């Protein structure tokens, strides 16, 4: 036949175009800042990361995980075989059969993608993504027919000119989407960028079940602090943005989005893609930032992000709860990006909104966000008879009190915890007035300079004393001490020290029998997972075990554990206070009320403050240590 050669030529041409597009895409990522990754090791680890880590997340949606395995696996396999059969013309029937098999698997997968797209949930982006299942089906059908002769089912050269012409159109549509689209920013870009993102992820510790949640330090000697333009991101952050499949799982989990604040993590990542590639968001076909129209955002790799691409309120709406990161099947790091951009606003522009500037100034001048006299930090403990490290020098446990020391409500938690420790005869001491704010709020508000200074000064103090454990009732301080101070701990002040949240520590005391508790006789109890304890540190069990040891059967909220909804208090959000339609704390309290609970157990002073701020009637809010202290078994003498 005259045009028998057409399919093979088309395949090669599309492949070549795809490769050119891909190279161009790579050059876009390379506009970012250098960041060291082990390229070879990353590439070698990539398949494993895809199969284990990525699928671990996708697996939460069984339908989608099977569909994706069939479609993706079928495609990769068929693509290799297509090259063997149709480009290199290997004439082995068995290979052709294998190809048809792979295509059938893919066709089945594509069918299910199609089905999901018939009535897509709001979180999914539409636009080109609606076209994708059709293209996938066309691709598999086209190549099945094209391969039939090679498999010996149809006689060779049976294709008429018309037939070949039709199939060629199929190739252009199907393979065009898959190969050309992959390189040139179509929906299939996710496969190419996603694979490389897995290979060169900035937090490779996350693979293999690890956790990596501490923010990365800013180099304070840099020319620009934080991220002002897309090209200020690390190159592999840009690559990560490009891996987004617009599945909207992050959006569905985002408390700020649900509260109607102008933030949608999916749109934010897509805006970053607009920024790195240059252009506008006119083609974005997903949900907008609440209250903001799509189509007005413009950006480029070297244009200031907050001057037209993303508004400042969007960045300040985030509570840094990490729900989006936890949910993202592509393991994209939204929080890193948001804080990077906040750093620019705070450290370069001095534009932290609302109370932000005042709080930061207080922290700088008094080491606490309220601007209280540093010498009054230990006033809460005047009647607690607590040993102070300055005199004691050495103790088993260092109790990190945190800024709750200045707040009367939080002091109740502190006192309860002290009473429990005394009951269990724990050898404990505090830093007293030598303690400083952990730097959590300053860091989340983008002031890494102040965070670093606090971390260094706290570490210098800690380094003077001997202790085996640091225990704190504040998950934010816990996170800083455990995950973020290591970057500054040159002298090894925390080396070999176990950093624990008080629920973990109390649970150890209860399980070892050092604390004896009576059964709890109140009503129904639910437990709210603090973001900085759960998602940031993976501690979901200890608080629950503690409650169970009181005989409490926890009435779990629908969103609990790693899917817990934020109380709205993290990331400095109550300080920057970006208006929305609802309050996040109200929504969380509604979650709690729905369980019928009369008591919400929490493990964080900030959560306590936020949830107690909800108007009554509502369940009572208590820290776990407050619940335990009421159940201390009377000692029989």
């Amino acid at each position: 036949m005259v045009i028998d050669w057409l399919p093979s030529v088309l395949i090669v041409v599309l492949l070549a175009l795809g490769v050119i597009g891909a190279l161009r895409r790579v050059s876009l990522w390379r506009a970012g800042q250098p960041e060291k990754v082990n390229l070879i090791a990353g590439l070698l680890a990539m398949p494993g990361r895809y199969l284990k880590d990525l699928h671990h997340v996708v697996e939460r949606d069984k339908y989608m995980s099977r569909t994706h395995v069939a479609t993706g696996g079928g495609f990769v396999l068929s693509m290799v075989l297509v090259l063997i059969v149709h480009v290199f013309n290997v004439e082995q029937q068995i290979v052709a059969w294998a190809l048809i098999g792979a295509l059938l698997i893919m066709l089945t997968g594509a069918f299910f993608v199609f089905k999901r797209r018939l009535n897509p949930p709001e979180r999914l982006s539409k636009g080109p993504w609606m076209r994708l299942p059709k293209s996938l089906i066309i691709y598999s059908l086209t190549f099945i027919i094209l391969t039939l002769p090679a498999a010996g089912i149809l006689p060779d050269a049976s294709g008429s000119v018309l037939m070949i012409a039709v199939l060629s159109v199929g190739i252009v549509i199907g393979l065009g989407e898959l190969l050309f689209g992959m390189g040139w920013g179509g929906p299939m870009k996710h496969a190419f960028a996603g694979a490389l993102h897995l290979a060169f992820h900035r937090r490779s510790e996350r693979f293999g079940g690890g956790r990596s949640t501490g923010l990365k330090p800013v180099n304070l000697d840099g020319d620009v602090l934080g991220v002002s333009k897309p090209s200020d991101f690390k190159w592999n952050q840009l690559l990560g943005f490009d891996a987004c499949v617009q599945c909207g799982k992050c959006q569905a989990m985002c408390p700020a989005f649900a509260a109607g604040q102008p933030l949608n993590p999916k749109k934010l990542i897509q805006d970053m893609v607009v920024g790195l590639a240059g252009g506008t968001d006119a083609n974005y076909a997903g949900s907008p930032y609440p209250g903001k129209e799509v189509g007005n955002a413009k950006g480029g790799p070297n244009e200031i992000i907050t001057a037209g691409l993303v508004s400042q309120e969007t960045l300040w709406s985030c509570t840094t709860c990490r729900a989006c990161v936890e949910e993202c099947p592509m393991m994209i790091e939204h929080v890193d990006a948001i804080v990077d951009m906040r750093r620019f606003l705070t450290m370069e522009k001095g534009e932290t909104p609302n109370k932000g500037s005042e709080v930061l100034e207080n922290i700088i001048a008094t080491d606490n966000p309220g601007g209280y006299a540093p010498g009054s930090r230990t006033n809460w403990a005047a009647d607690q008879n607590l040993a102070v490290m300055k005199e004691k020098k050495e103790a088993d446990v260092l109790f990190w009190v945190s800024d709750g020391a200045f707040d009367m409500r939080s002091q109740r938690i502190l006192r309860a915890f002290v009473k429990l420790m005394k009951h269990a005869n724990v050898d404990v001491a505090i830093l007293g007035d030598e303690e400083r704010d952990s730097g959590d709020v300053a860091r989340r508000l983008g002031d890494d300079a102040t965070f670093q200074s606090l971390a260094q000064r706290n570490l210098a103090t800690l380094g003077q004393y001997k202790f085996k454990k640091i225990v704190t009732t504040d998950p934010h301080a816990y996170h800083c001490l455990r995950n973020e101070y290591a970057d500054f701990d040159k002298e090894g002040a925390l080396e070999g020290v176990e950093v624990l949240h008080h629920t973990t520590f109390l649970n150890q005391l209860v399980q070892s029998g050092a604390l004896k508790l009576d059964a709890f006789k109140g009503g129904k109890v639910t437990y709210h997972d603090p973001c900085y304890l759960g998602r940031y540190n993976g501690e979901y069990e200890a608080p629950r075990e503690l409650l169970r040891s009181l005989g409490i059967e926890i009435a779990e909220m629908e969103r609990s554990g790693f899917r817990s909804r934020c109380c709205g208090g993290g990331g400095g959000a109550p300080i920057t206070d970006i208006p929305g339609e609802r309050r996040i704390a109200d929504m969380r309290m509604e979650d709690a009320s729905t369980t019928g609970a009369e008591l919400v157990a929490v493990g964080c002073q900030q959560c306590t403050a936020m949830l107690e701020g909800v108007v009554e009637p509502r369940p009572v809010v208590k820290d776990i240590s407050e619940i335990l202290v009421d159940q201390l078994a009377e000692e029989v003498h």
Partner: protein
Amino acid sequence: MPHKVISLISVGRHPQSGRSRRADQDSRAVELGLKLAGTDLDVVHAGSSQEPVLRQYAGMGLPKVTVLEQDESADALVSIADYLKSEKADIVLTGVRAESGESSGMTPYILSEQLGWPIVARVADIVEIKGDEAQVLLALPRGQRRQVTVKLPFIASIDNAAEAARQSAFGPGLRAKMDSQNGSTVEDSVRVDWSEAPAKARPKRLKIVKAKTAADRFKAATAKPQGGSGKVMKNESAQEQAQAIFDLLIEEKVIR
């Protein structure tokens, strides 16, 4: 022709922690200066260019800070007066009183005396500069304002009622240039002999509030004590004046 504005800055002290910081009124003087002159504002400090607090001021968006290098024991007034004489300034902005050092509040007055310029005390805002005149808003107690017209050049001390200083950004503060010039070497001979001690709280005049309504109580709480029964004694002899003061102290039970 744009007017030349100079803001004088000093090292402040946080009231709670006693730690160095940008002084509240001085940073308001910088804020007002930025409003009037933008980044052409000349911000001047007499002291050490190594002083970290200067970076906090610079973080307000100042490309440079002029530092009149001098020892801590040297008299800042001499440095500043010399500098102001050499620069053709139109408006000099200072705080009402420094948060550290002598904190006497005399700096603007002595400068005005030495330069022979008028001084406008407790300024809330400078609304407009037209030709060689400025419309100035003075801050009076209880949120009241008085508008005055002042001829350039003049010195203004900035009240706490003026626009609060903008946030200080770390990066620009770090990168700002410290433009060092030679300051004075004249020793502040009065101050060397002083020793510093923490201030004791001054006794407050007790207010007997006889308010019946919430509105009255609010007024009583917000009003500055005004001791309406005071009288001005100009023509009496020193003896009589002293006696009057003595009687008052007994009446107020300050001495028994």
